[in-house]
């Protein structure tokens, strides 16, 4: 493979920064490769501060939006790395590796209605998924839960059903229990769940999908050192059936994920 085919240009300039809520920002940057090649559900691995060792490792972020030669991520300031990134200014340079991982399986024939079940910053991969589903002409229902009204990032989503823990907007309670009522009332025509959010919520969705026997895909967040399959640091445990079938005890989230079919993994 010659040098030219290789992805060596990682530095990209931040062209737009928006603060959606305190500690919740979007960063748009110029990166033709990521902008043009990313499919819904893939992620990038971003270095918080190039050349410095605190923190040392990159941080993975789902691609939130792409347009022309620009891509966007949404960052929730959380620990050392994300707080540095959230403070990035327009004009700064980011060291971005990607696109990485596999896309959502939104073109599988096994469903009529795409149900996007979102918890908090799990929204990150959903605008691109929405765009892809619309190209597939699939009906979409989006059930989106957050701690409070101010924490929603609603751009690029469709047919919203909101839920907040504090009742400041929409349904007062968890998005999963909202989904349960919809399913019980049979309001969703042969649905498939696309789930991303806190682990607890994803477990609940996993159970719900099993209970109603509907297809369900879950996008995981695990620690990652490399994001490209060379450190083996990001395994998820497979369920017994999958293990017996495939002989695989683990799957690497960065290479075989980040999204997996709910029944093949143990959260």
């Amino acid at each position: 493979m010659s040098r030219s085919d290789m992805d060596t240009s990682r530095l990209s300039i931040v062209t737009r920064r928006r603060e959606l809520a305190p500690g919740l920002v979007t960063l748009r940057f110029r990166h033709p490769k990521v902008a043009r090649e990313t499919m819904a559900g893939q992620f990038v691995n971003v270095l918080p501060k190039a050349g410095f060792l605190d923190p040392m490792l990159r941080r993975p972020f789902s691609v939130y939006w792409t347009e022309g030669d620009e891509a966007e991520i949404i960052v929730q300031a959380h620990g050392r790395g994300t707080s540095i990134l959230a403070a990035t200014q327009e004009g700064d340079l980011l060291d971005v590796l990607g696109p990485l991982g596999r896309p959502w399986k939104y073109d599988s024939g096994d469903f009529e209605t795409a149900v996007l079940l979102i918890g908090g910053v799990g929204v990150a991969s959903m605008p691109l998924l929405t765009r892809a589903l619309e190209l597939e002409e699939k009906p979409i229902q989006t059930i989106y839960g957050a701690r409070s009204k101010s924490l929603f990032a609603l751009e690029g989503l469709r047919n919203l059903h909101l839920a907040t823990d504090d009742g400041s907007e929409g349904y007062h309670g968890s998005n999963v229990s909202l989904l349960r009522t919809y399913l019980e009332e049979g309001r969703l025509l042969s649905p498939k769940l696309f789930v991303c959010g806190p682990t607890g919520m994803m477990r609940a969705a996993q159970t719900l999908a099993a209970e109603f026997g509907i297809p369900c895909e879950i996008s995981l967040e695990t620690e990652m050192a490399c994001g490209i399959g060379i450190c083996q640091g990001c395994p998820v445990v497979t369920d017994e059936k999958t293990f017996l079938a495939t002989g695989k005890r683990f799957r690497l989230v960065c290479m075989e994920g980040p999204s997996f079919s709910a029944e093949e993994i143990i959260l």
Partner: protein
Amino acid sequence: MTQTQNGQRFPDMKVRLRDVEFKTPVLVASGTFGYGAEARNYCDIEQLGGIVTKSVSWKPRVGNHPHRIVETAGGMLNSIGLANVGVHTFVKEKLPYLAQFDTKIIANIAASSMEEYRDVLEHIEAHSVENLAGYEINISCPNVKDGGLSFGTSVERTEELTALLRQSTDRLLIIKLTPNVTSVAPFAEAAERAGADAISLINTLVGMSIDIRAREPRLSTVTGGLSGPAVKPVALAKVYEARKACSIPIIGIGGIVTAEDAIEFLIVGATMVQVGTANFVYPDAGVRIAEGMERFLHSEGIANVGELIHSLRVRAELRALGW
């Protein structure tokens, strides 16, 4: 950067271990570069001095349960648990794949018994490819109960094992030492006595991290292996100690991220270096570091990288004191 003078690369970055020539002194370390396929999109593999492959054992190993990695100050802890495809898949799939690259391959072997080490080595030897330069013997993995550390902390068993494996190959035999010992010198001596062509060090330092709210270890195996820039000072001191103890070549490993880091190891006495954790942040680290070393040689007017090796100046009165 690289200019050619009558076809010669200048400055000359080539180094030799015994009769094997490497393009540059920079290898990628075992377990930090997969088997080449994963990183090739991000790194021009043929610009590397060579690839040390992930430790391979007789049977495949699935590795340890999550969590396997924790970031720490200037480094990281890992507890991968020697996850590997097993030697049969290794020779069927990985080795032939690696054969396509114009660079040297060093197969790293981990096992839990003398026999297993020998069997794995002989199986690879029987299916070897042209660019297979030799073997690195991992007797220093801290993350699996039967990962060979029982060898790595016993001078006698290190010598026995080295002697045994020496009988099974004429390719390079490199013994990878652990830093988790009071003194690394006797291990370096043992490897040399038993016929090793070189030693490599360091493997990871035993370390630990706690989730204070859960009051649980962050790694599923409680302790893990510390790597990255945080360990570089320790690695340099171990290479320095080994350099005084033996006369076979040393491959320096530990926390190398920049060309300057690599040059420190050469000056202390290493003939080559391996880059590990840095690959996770910069998949092309091994190439970038070699390029940086070349620039350094240029700016210092040094024609051959070999001139750096073991060029440390220690003031006489200190040498007298036995430093």
